[in-house]
C-alpha cells in the first residue's frame, strides 16, 4: 500500500500512483453486472432500483444480463421455494468467476415471513455462499444501493495474494456447488455444510 501523504504530494505534482491491487479491485467493483433474477415481490423493488429515480447504473451495474454466463452477480430477490432452489444453484454454477450473491429481502435471507411454509427454503445461503444480506420486506431501493456499496467495499478490501484471496484466484476453492435433488420429503441434502453452518442458539 502506498502511503496516503506521499500519494497526495505526488498528486499535486501531477503524478498518479496506485498499486495493482487497488487498480484491479477498482475495475472489478465498478462494473458488476447483475443477472436478471427476480423471484417475488423484492424483484419489483430491484426493478425500481434500475429505473430513473434511483438508477443502479450509476454504481456500475449498467446492464442486467439475462444469461448467467455474462453476469457477475446474482441478486436473489424473493422467496426461494424448495422447487426453485435446484435451479438457483444450477444458475449460480453457470456463472463465471468472480461472482457474487446479494440476498435481498427477508425471504432470501431466511425464508422470511413464510419461513415455516411447506415449500419454502429457509434462506438461499444454505446452498450457495452469500456475500451481502439485505433485511427488509421489501428493502427500499436505497437499501439495495447501500448493499451494493457494501459489496463494493468488500471487493475493495480483498487482497489478491495470500490466505484470504478471493475465490476466483484460488484454484482449490473453486468448483461447482452441489445441486440439491428433490427427494421424497425434502430437498436432499437439506443444506450444504461446506457453505452453511448455523450456530446453535440456546433457547
Amino acid at each position, binding site marked *: 500500500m502506498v502511503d496516503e501523504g506521499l500519494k497526495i504530494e505526488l498528486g499535486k505534482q501531477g503524478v498518479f500512483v496506485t498499486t495493482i491491487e487497488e487498480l484491479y479491485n477498482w475495475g472489478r467493483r465498478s462494473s458488476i453486472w447483475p443477472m436478471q433474477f427476480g423471484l417475488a415481490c423484492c424483484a419489483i423493488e430491484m426493478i425500481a432500483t434500475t429505473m430513473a429515480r434511483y438508477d443502479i447504473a450509476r454504481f456500475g451495474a449498467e446492464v442486467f444480463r439475462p444469461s448467467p454466463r455474462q453476469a457477475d452477480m446474482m441478486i436473489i430477490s424473493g422467496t426461494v421455494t424448495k422447487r426453485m432452489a435446484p435451479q438457483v444453484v444450477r444458475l449460480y454454477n453457470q456463472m463465471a468467476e468472480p461472482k457474487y450473491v446479494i*440476498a435481498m429481502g427477508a425471504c432470501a435471507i431466511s425464508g422470511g415471513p413464510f419461513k415455516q411454509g411447506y415449500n419454502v427454503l429457509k434462506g438461499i445461503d444454505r446452498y450457495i455462499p452469500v456475500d451481502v444480506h439485505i433485511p427488509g420486506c421489501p428493502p427500499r431501493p436505497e437499501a439495495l444501493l447501500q448493499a451494493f456499496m457494501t459489496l463494493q467495499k468488500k471487493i475493495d478490501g480483498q487482497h489478491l495474494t495470500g490466505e484470504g484471496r478471493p475465490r476466483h484466484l484460488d484454484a482449490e476453492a473453486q468448483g461447482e456447488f452441489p445441486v440439491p435433488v428433490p427427494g421424497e420429503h425434502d430437498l436432499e441434502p437439506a443444506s450444504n455444510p461446506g457453505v452453511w453452518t448455523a450456530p446453535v442458539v440456546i433457547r
Partner: protein
Amino acid sequence: MLGEGILKGLAETAKNFVGSFVSAERLTTVQYPEQRIAPIEATRDFPFLVYDGADWEAGMRCVACQICEKECPPKCIYIVKSIDKKPDALGKPQFYPARFDIDISVCMSCQICVEVCPFEAIKMDTEFELSRTDRFGGLLFDREELAKSNEHYHKIHPTEAAQVDARLAGEKAKSDAKAKGAALAAAAKAAAAAKPAVSTENAAAKPEGAEIKP
C-alpha cells in the same frame, strides 16, 4: 395518418431525453447517497424499544408483557421476562425484559407489535441501511441494539411522539391525582380516628359543667 401513434410516442421520448439535459424537473434521479429523498413521517422499517431519560436500562418502557411476541405474525420476537422488578415511569414496580431479541432477517415491518403495545414501548424506526455480510450475528438484534431514546423517537416521528408524550403525561397526572387523593383520604381517616378518642374524653369530662349553660 398511418403511424401517428408511433410518432407521438417517439416525440414523448425525445422530449424526455433532450429535456433531461436542459431542465431540472426532467432529471428525476435522486443521487443516493449524496442526495436522499426526505422520508414521510409514517415511514417504517424495523422496530425499536423506546427509553425515557439517559439510561437505556432504567428508562426502558417495556414491561415484558409479551403481547407483541404473541401477536407478531412471523414470530420474530423473543422475550425473556426478568425475575426482579424495577419501577416504571409512574413509580410502579414492573418486570422488564431480561432478553428481547428481534430477528430482522424475518421481520416484515407490519407494525402489529407497535399497534398492540399497551405501554408505548416499541415503535417503528426509519433506519434501512442495514445490509450485512454476517447473517447470524448481524441480523439478530438484542435489546441493547434495539434501545433508542425518546428524543430519537421525537426526531423521526414528531407528531406521533408528541401525542404519545401527551397521553403518558395525562396518565401520570391522573395517577398522581389519584395518589394525592388517596393520601388525603388516608390522612383524613387518621385524623377522624384520632378525634373520637379526644371527644369521648371531653364528653366524659363535660357532665359537671353542663348544667351551667342555659
